[in-house]
Every structure is written in C-alpha cells, then in structure tokens.
C-alpha cells in the first residue's frame, strides 16, 4: 500500500487502480472533440465586446473573403430556437439569456456570431475579421455598481424555499456575553476545466448526435431537443470522458442548440472549439458574494445566537443563488438562529454551480467568524467547535445520520501537529518567514437522486454495466465496476462499464456529489435482480422471503455493504439451470423520500436530489477538518502554504485511491481559492479582464509541497444502500477559512476578503 493507495480500514473499499487509467495515460481516452466526424465544418465564435447595449451593424465583407468560409451566422440570419427555462424552473438551461436571438447584448462575451468554415484556422481568421458596431449602454458590473437591484432570494428562486431561523436571535444576541459582528467577501471565480467548452453536432436524417463534455447527458439531450422543437428520443449526447466539470457542465449552455441548428441547416457535422477566454463568458461561473455574520456566545464558548446574511450577484433575468445558509445555520448547536439571503442583479451572465456552490463562500464566512470568536474567547478554535458540536439539526431538530466532525478534528490535529502551535499571533517564525497554523471545519450535504442501470452477466462471469453516468475525473467508472464485481461475485477485470451516453439508462447529473451514492445504489440493485434470478433458478422452491434475503442480499438497508454474510453464488451452475447464455436486468432505483414524479423526471433529464437537510426525519452531511500551515515572508509579504492536512469522514469510502485524489484535489483547490483565484472585473464596462490561464492564477506544483489526506472509518446505514456520502465537494470548503485563520496566526492580521494577496498583508 502507498500514500496514493491507502490500506483499507473498516468500511473502506479496495484501492484498485482507476478503470480508465491506462486509456488516459496512453492518450486513448476520447474526449468529445476527439470524436471523428465525417467531413465536418468548423465553427468559431464571435463574442461581444460590450456588456450591455445593442449591435448596430456587422461588417462581414472582410471576413467572408477569407478562403474557406462557409457561413457567418448572426442574429439577422440565425435559425430560430425555442426558449428553455432555467434548470431550477423546470427547464434545462444554465442561463435564459439566449444569444443570436436579437441585437440586444446582456453580458460581456455574449455569443454574437458563429463563423463556419472548412477549417478551424479559416473560421478563426474570419472571426478575427468580423467588425461590429455597438450602441453601448452603461452596464452595472457588481455589488455597489449603480443600477443594480437587490431583493431577498426567497420568492424569486424556486429552489430557495426558506431563510432558516429558529428561536429569537435578536434577543439572544443582545444578551450574549461575547459578541462578534463581522463581514466577509468572496470573489468571482471560473472553473477553467482543462477541456474547453467544445461541441460537435452531427445529424443523421432527423437524428442528432452531440459530442460534448457534459455532467448531465440526459439534461442536455432533453434541453437541446426542447430548444430545437424535436422529440428528445432523436437526440443522443455522447461523452465517455469529460475533461473536468466542477459544475460548469451541469446545465445546458446556449452554444449547443445553436451549433446543432446550424449543422442541420448546412447539412453537415459541425465542430466548435471555443477559446479559453470565451469559456469565461459562454458558460457559468461562481458569482461574488458578501456576508454579514453575527455570533453571540457565553463566556465558556457556547453559541447562543447566530445570524448569517448573504448576498450574491446574479444576472438580470435569472435569480440564481447558492444560499449556503441552509448549511451554516445547521452546522453548530445554537438555539437562536437567523438568516437572510439576497440576490443582487447586474449586467452579467447567469452564474451557476461551481464545486460546493453553497458551502465554499458561506462556510468561509462562518468558519472565519468562529476563529475570530475563539480569539475573543481566548480559546483553542478546535475546542470551540467541540463545545458547539451538534448531534441534531438546530433548525428542525432532526438527528444527523452520522457525524464525525470532532473525530476528524482530532485525527487531523494529531497528524498536523496542532499541539506544537503557540497560540499567540506572530509567535512562530523561521528565518524570513512568519509561520501560522490555522484550521476549519468542512462539510457537504449527502445527496442522492434516482438512477437507472442495466447489467448483463454472461456464464463466464463477463459483466457489462450500462448507465448514463459521467466520468468527470472522479473515478466513476472504477467505483461502478467495483460495485458490480463485488455484488455479482465476479473478478473486477471481467466488468466492463459504459457511461457518458444518453442512449444508456438514465443517471442523475454529476453534481451535488450525488453520483457515487446514486449510480452505485442503482447498479447494486440491478445486480441483486440478477442474483435473484440466478437464485431462483438454483432453488426454485425456496421462498425469496427467507433464505434469499440473507443469501442474495436483495434486502435494502441496513445491509449497506456488498453481500454481507452472503453465500457466494455459483454462476455457472445457475446459468445451466436457467438454460440461457446471458442474464440481463434493467432497474430504476430511487432514494427514500424522492418525490412521486422522480422516475418520470429522471427520463426527462430533470434531477430530483434528496438528502442533506431535506430528508424526512434526519439530516445527512459528510464532515471533515482541515489544518494548514501558512508562511508569510516578512519582507515581500508573499504568502505560501507548505502544508495542507485534512481528515474526512464520508460513510463508506468506495475506493480510497480515487477518494484520496478527490480530497487532495479539493484541499489544493481550497488553497487556490483562498490565495490565488479571482476573476477581475473592469467595473466601468462589466467585463472580465484576466480571462486566461496566465492571469487567472491557479497553483503550480511548487505551490503545493505537502498535502495529507486522512480518511476516517464511518458507517452510516441511514443514507443509501451503498452507505456512501458524496465527497467530491467536501475538501475544498473549509480550506478558505483555514488559510485565513492561519494568516491571522502568522501575522495578527484578520483578512476577510478573498483571495488574500501580498498587498493585503501589513506587517
């Protein structure tokens, strides 16, 4: 066993290598834009240079003269598309701003023309030669810009149902012995997955195939069909591998239906490869947020009052918001809680999911404030969290299905060497560097959604699993293959998994960290259907009610682990008894508490996530604790982070190797988010300025000398049949606060606005 493949502890699966490792390392994995097309034309986008106003005129002569240009599509000659509603309003779209519909411009970098040519180079050259005259209006860029409007989220965003509250915050805060009242800010961020926002569309008669990196092939298929006004069964989305998603490919962007419609008109496949900077404006992003936190505590550290007010930027037409108060009001035991989320509308594209959408900004605020409170109380920040650890949701009173927060703190503290910390700020140093230690809690709701799967077993054990899940780099192929192998009792090498294709049985969006729990639960259930058939063939007279329950593991909870206590099944004998060559089963699984329309919605590409605080009698979250060492240079004030240590508990860990990779990536991204990442907005014109990977900074290897991931054993029999809590979005949550808390410890300076840069440090 190695660091990359940790030895399994209790309730940790085998750290088998990635199913797709060899294909990826050898360059055999075909991403959407690698898919061969028959005689394709190439599209290049022209995007707007203003954020608000109108297009007066295009001058296209120069562009059309470029050899190889086939067509230039603008709002004046674009195919007409039907509207798609926002995903949260029963539609599929990540934005309702539909480009090429009119001369109106609603945000910077909006698609205003598509150049189609015989080659990528010709399309790009012609796009460069397109001249556009605008009548520009003064746009509102962000918070505080003139012309923005603000209103409570509740009532305008159908997914934001309630501002959580309990008790009497005002009275309790007034009477509190120790009070804290502070504000925080987080910046605009962009996902920048390695794979660009490409799309290839090919028609065969009335049938459309779309090759596009997507985190939700069923959503995209249905959404594009709706926009084109065709039957969804005529659309197929294919992407066996996705080059990173991070939420950016969760909902449909406007580019796809446009390219599909142009391909139809030209009667030729079209391949679009947008540029990196276009990726900043043709897809979604994490909007900037502001927070007001008020904490009241007794002198011994018990929270008596907590208020979290958040404000988020969204576009003019769409009330997107992440509303992380659902988590921050429930993390700690506190009898008097109040919260409010509001949305500020500006002339921007609609923001969208980005890895741990609600938790990243909102927990940064809460976990920083807790550290500030610990300082006020002169208390170890770990102890403050211990005193306020909750066993029940403070808002609704429901118990946590399992909660290992303090166990994580203790393990991580030990591994990190927290006891070596001298609590006084500015008290630790090494040569030119001031040293700070900081920590924070991290958490993410445990979510599940309905999923289907088809499994086919052959007499020799060869198994084929079909499910329209998504390999966004998380290890989905691997854990699905492991689940099927374990459940059917066949060797892992005999399992083939097919995903990323909307012709396969539907799986939910690869978002909200629900994939492993949902898809593996479905696969497990369908494997059990197969076992059941085989069992019946072998023991036709036994009633399934007695023996079968223990021997084939078809009972639901609480046997959350594969075939606990099962007898192994003699597959060959069962096949002989059945007299068939292949056994194939299809099944649809849904989590407890899923709404009535779940399966219909699943086929229509609409997700019905359940879990987190929305379970009926319980509340389910994964937890972790993160410790960081920060170094601040006395002279240059450069901030570096030599050590990140995280301990996490997330129910059953299906594969410690792929899980560790997720958690490690999360810690690194969290550090990046705290110290480096921000999309700069030119407020005069509401445009992004650093829209490229040289200026939108992410860490390089030299920035990440040490990361340690600890996975705790945790068994949770209340969440889903596999017993897994999603962890893809768990690790990048707490890091932001942990870093700022460490900077405070190093310098005595509290920084409440991300990212922290050297100019924010005063020594």
């Amino acid at each position, binding site marked *: 066993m190695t660091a990359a493949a940790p030895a399994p502890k209790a309730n940790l699966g085998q750290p088998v290598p990635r199913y797709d490792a060899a294909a990826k390392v050898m360059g055999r994995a075909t991403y959407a834009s690698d898919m061969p097309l028959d005689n394709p034309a190439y599209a290049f986008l022209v995007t707007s240079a203003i954020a608000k106003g109108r297009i007066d005129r295009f001058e296209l002569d120069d562009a059309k003269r470029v050899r190889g240009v086939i067509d230039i599509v603008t709002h004046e000659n674009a195919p007409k598309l039907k509207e798609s509603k926002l995903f949260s309003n029963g539609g599929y779209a990540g934005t309702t701003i539909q480009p090429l519909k009119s001369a109106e411009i609603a945000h910077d970098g909006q698609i205003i023309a598509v150049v189609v040519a015989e080659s990528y180079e010709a399309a790009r050259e012609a796009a460069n030669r397109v001249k556009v005259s605008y009548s520009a209006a003064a746009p509102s860029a962000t918070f505080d810009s003139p012309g923005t409007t603000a209103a409570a989220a509740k009532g305008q965003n159908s997914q934001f149902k309630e501002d959580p509250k309990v008790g009497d915050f005002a009275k309790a805060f007034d009477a509190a012995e120790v009070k804290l009242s502070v504000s925080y800010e987080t910046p605009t961020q962009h996902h920048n997955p390695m794979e660009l926002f490409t799309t290839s569309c090919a028609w065969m008669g009335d049938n459309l195939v779309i090759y596009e990196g997507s985190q939700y092939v069923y959503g995209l298929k249905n959404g594009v069909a709706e926009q084109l006004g065709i039957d969804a069964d005529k659309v197929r989305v294919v992407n066996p591998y996705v080059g990173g998603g991070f939420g950016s490919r969760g909902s449909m962007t406007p580019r796809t239906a446009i390219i599909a419609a142009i391909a139809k008109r030209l009667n030729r496949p079209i391949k679009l490869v947008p540029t990196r900077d276009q990726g900043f404006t043709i897809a979604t992003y994490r909007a900037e947020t502001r927070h007001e936190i008020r904490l009241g505590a007794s002198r011994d550290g018990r929270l008596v009052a907590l208020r979290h007010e958040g404000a988020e930027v969204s576009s003019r037409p769409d009330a997107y918001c992440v509303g992380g108060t659902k988590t921050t009001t429930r993390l700690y035991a506190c009898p008097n809680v109040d919260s409010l989320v509001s949305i500020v509308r500006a002339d921007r594209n609609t923001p969208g999911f980005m890895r741990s959408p609600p938790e990243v900004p909102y927990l940064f605020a809460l976990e920083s404030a807790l550290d500030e409170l610990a300082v006020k109380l002169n208390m170890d920040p770990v102890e403050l969290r211990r005193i306020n650890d909750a066993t029940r949701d403070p808002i609704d009173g429901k118990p946590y299905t399992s909660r290992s927060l303090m166990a994580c703190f203790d393990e991580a503290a030990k591994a990190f060497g927290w006891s070596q910390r001298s609590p006084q700020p500015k008290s630790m140093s090494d040569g030119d560097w001031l040293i700070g230690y900081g920590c924070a809690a991290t958490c993410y709701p445990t979510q599940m959604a309905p999923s289907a799967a088809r499994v086919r077993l052959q007499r020799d054990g060869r198994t084929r699993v079909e499910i329209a899940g998504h390999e966004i780099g998380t290890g989905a192929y691997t854990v699905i293959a492991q689940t099927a192998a374990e459940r059917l009792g066949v060797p892992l090498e005999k399992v083939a998994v097919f995903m990323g294709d909307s012709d396969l049985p539907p799986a939910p969006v690869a978002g909200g960290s629900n994939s492993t729990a949902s898809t593996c639960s479905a696969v497990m259930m369908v494997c059990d259907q197969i076992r059941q058939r085989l069992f019946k063939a072998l023991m036709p007279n036994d009633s399934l009610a007695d023996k079968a329950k223990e021997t084939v593991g078809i009972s639901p909870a609480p046997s959350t682990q594969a075939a606990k206590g099962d007898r192994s099944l003699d597959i060959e004998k069962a096949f002989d008894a059945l007299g068939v060559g292949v056994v194939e089963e299809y099944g649809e699984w849904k989590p407890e508490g899923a709404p009535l329309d779940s399966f219909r919605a699943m086929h229509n590409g609409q997700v019905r996530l359940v879990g987190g605080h929305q379970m009926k009698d319980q509340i389910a979250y994964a937890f972790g604790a993160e410790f960081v060492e920060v170094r601040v240079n006395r002279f240059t004030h*450069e901030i570096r982070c030599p050590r990140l240590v995280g301990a996490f508990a997330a129910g059953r860990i299906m594969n410690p190797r792929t899980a560790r990779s997720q958690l490690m990536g999360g810690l690194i991204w969290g550090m990046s988010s705290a110290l480096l990442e921000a999309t*700069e907005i030119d407020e005069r014109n509401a445009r992004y*300025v*650093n829209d490229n990977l040289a200026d939108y900074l992410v860490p390089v290897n030299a*920035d990440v000398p040490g990361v340690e991931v600890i996975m705790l054993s945790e068994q949770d029999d209340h969440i889903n049949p596999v017993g897994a809590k999603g962890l893809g979005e768990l690790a990048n949550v707490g890091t932001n606060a942990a870093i700022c808390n460490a900077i405070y410890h190093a310098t005595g300076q509290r920084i409440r606005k991300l990212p922290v840069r050297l100019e924010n440090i005063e020594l």
Partner: protein
Amino acid sequence: MRPFSYQRASDPDMAVQALGAAAAANDPLTKAAAQPLAGGTTLIDLMKLDVMRPTAIVDISPLAQAWSAIAPGGDGLRLGALAKMSDVAAHAEIQRSYPVIADSLKLAASAQLRNMATLGGNVMQRTRCNYFRDVSYENCNKRNPGSGCAAMDGVNRMHAVLGTSDQCIATYPGDFAQALIALDAMVEVTGKAGTRSMPFAQLHKRPGSTPDIETALQPGELISAFSIQGRWPRSVYLKARDRQSYEFALSSAAIALDIQDGTIRDARVALGGVATVPWRAREAEALLKGQKFDDGLPQRVADAAFADARGRRHNSFKIALGKRVVARALQQAVTMEI
C-alpha cells in the same frame, strides 16, 4: 491568427534581408510586416491573440550555431542571442560569477518555456497588460496609437509605477533584462549595415507619447549577442510574485555589489515588475557607492529607488513592496558568501 509566410533563415544576412524587405517605411518594429521567430513563446501567443499580425515570419533558430555562445572569459561574458534561457541558467560558471543572471533566468516562466525561449526573444518580450493582449478592447495606445489607455483607470494591479506616461502604464514583464541593465551590458545588433553595439540601457524606450515604439531596434535588425565586462559574483536577483513559480514579478530587484574591505566600491540596482522598461535605479546606486554598509542604508536606498514612483488604483502597493524587495535584496547581496 492570420495567414503568414514562413521562411527559415539560412544565415544572418538572409534573415536581415528578409526582415528588411517586408518593412514599410515608418512602421514601428512592433507593427512590422515581417517578424523574427526565435522560441516563439511570445510571438506565437500574440499572433493567436490577433495582437500581432505579421504577414511574414523569419525563423532565426537555424542561426543558433553562430548565435548561442555562453562564453564567460577572463575579462567578461558573452551570451549569444539564441542561447536558451535554461542553458544559461544552468551554466556553472554563470551561477558562480553572475548569480544575478542565472537567478533572473531560473526564476522566470516555467521549465518548459525556458527550454524553448531564447535570450534575444526574452528581452524583446512584450507587456502582459490584459488590455493590450485582448483586442476586443479598443483603447490601447500601444496597440492602437491614439485610442487611449484602458488600463489607466481600469484593472491595473500588474501595471508600472515607474517610467509611466499619460499614454501608457504597461509593465515591462521580463526578469533577465534587469540583470543585463544592472551589469551595464552591451547589446550587439546585426542589421543590413553589419553589426553595431549599444548599451543595453538604450534598447528599451519609455512609452512617452509613443507607447507603440518599444525598442531602439529598426525593422530588419536582430539582436545577435549580449556582453558584460568583469565578473559579478556578489549579485542577487530577488523576485516577489503571487505564486512560487511560473509567474511574473510583482516586484523584483537585481543587485550587484563590489565590496572591498567593507567599502562598497561599485553598486548596481535595477528594478523589475514595477517599471515600463528595464529600470536602473541610479539615484539608489549613488547612495551606496563609496559607503560602508549600515543598518539604515537599505531603507535609504529603497526610498531613493522609488522616489519618483506613482501608483494608481490597484498598483500603489508596488511602491512599498518594491522598497522592501530592494532593501532585502541589498541585505542578501551584502551578506552572501562568495
């Protein structure tokens, strides 16, 4: 990117001819129709961004045989313009006798870029001003003379505080040039009329009212070599930046000292990341020459170096930062073991 012709230079004459032939009268070098291609790490980027639109590319990499010497000698150093950044940075004698050069190269860009990039291309690299590099912004005096400057009141954290004009505040982004200017390097230029030499300090032009004119080179001229007198073992390059590697300087200092019996006989101070051109802080040097080191000296020198600095909305921090970087680099140069 737009179509262009591509020629490989067979020898310096041919390169100079080819570059000169395509040049229209009055074109500044930055707009010349023909551009030399060395490692391509600046030029190809800018062509893809549609910022530079040459119609002819003359690949000068075949001249590497003649032009890539790394030749430290008894009386000084000669570096060919086509020497690779990585080769020079890794050269043991450069590390020993010219640490400021080795470090300025080693701390620049990434390993991959340093393997491609040449010294000549490096000093000729162009600003990273986002408004310059994004042609969808009309207002850029450097790209579109007379159109205004979007950075002046825009996002200007990375911009210059020294050597600016009311036309342009773009930072000269490179690192190596600070080492060259500090060490009084000469630059050898090969053109139609043969080879001429000039102080490296005269190569780059402040923006003034013509930010599109960046250097003293004319179309058809190539840098063939750099040369430096003497050895400078007591020299350092200190670079402050947002991340630990692969990032331009927010502020840097190239310092070279000649200390004999506790007296600073000669001192060189150059600044990077803060000025529109490679910047020599002569006022600061004057405070050092002939002095003995005292604890207050670094601060006085740093103050002098930034006496004329002017910050704008997001970059004012560079003044305080730059001073601390100079002061620290000076302390390091004084205390370094040679």
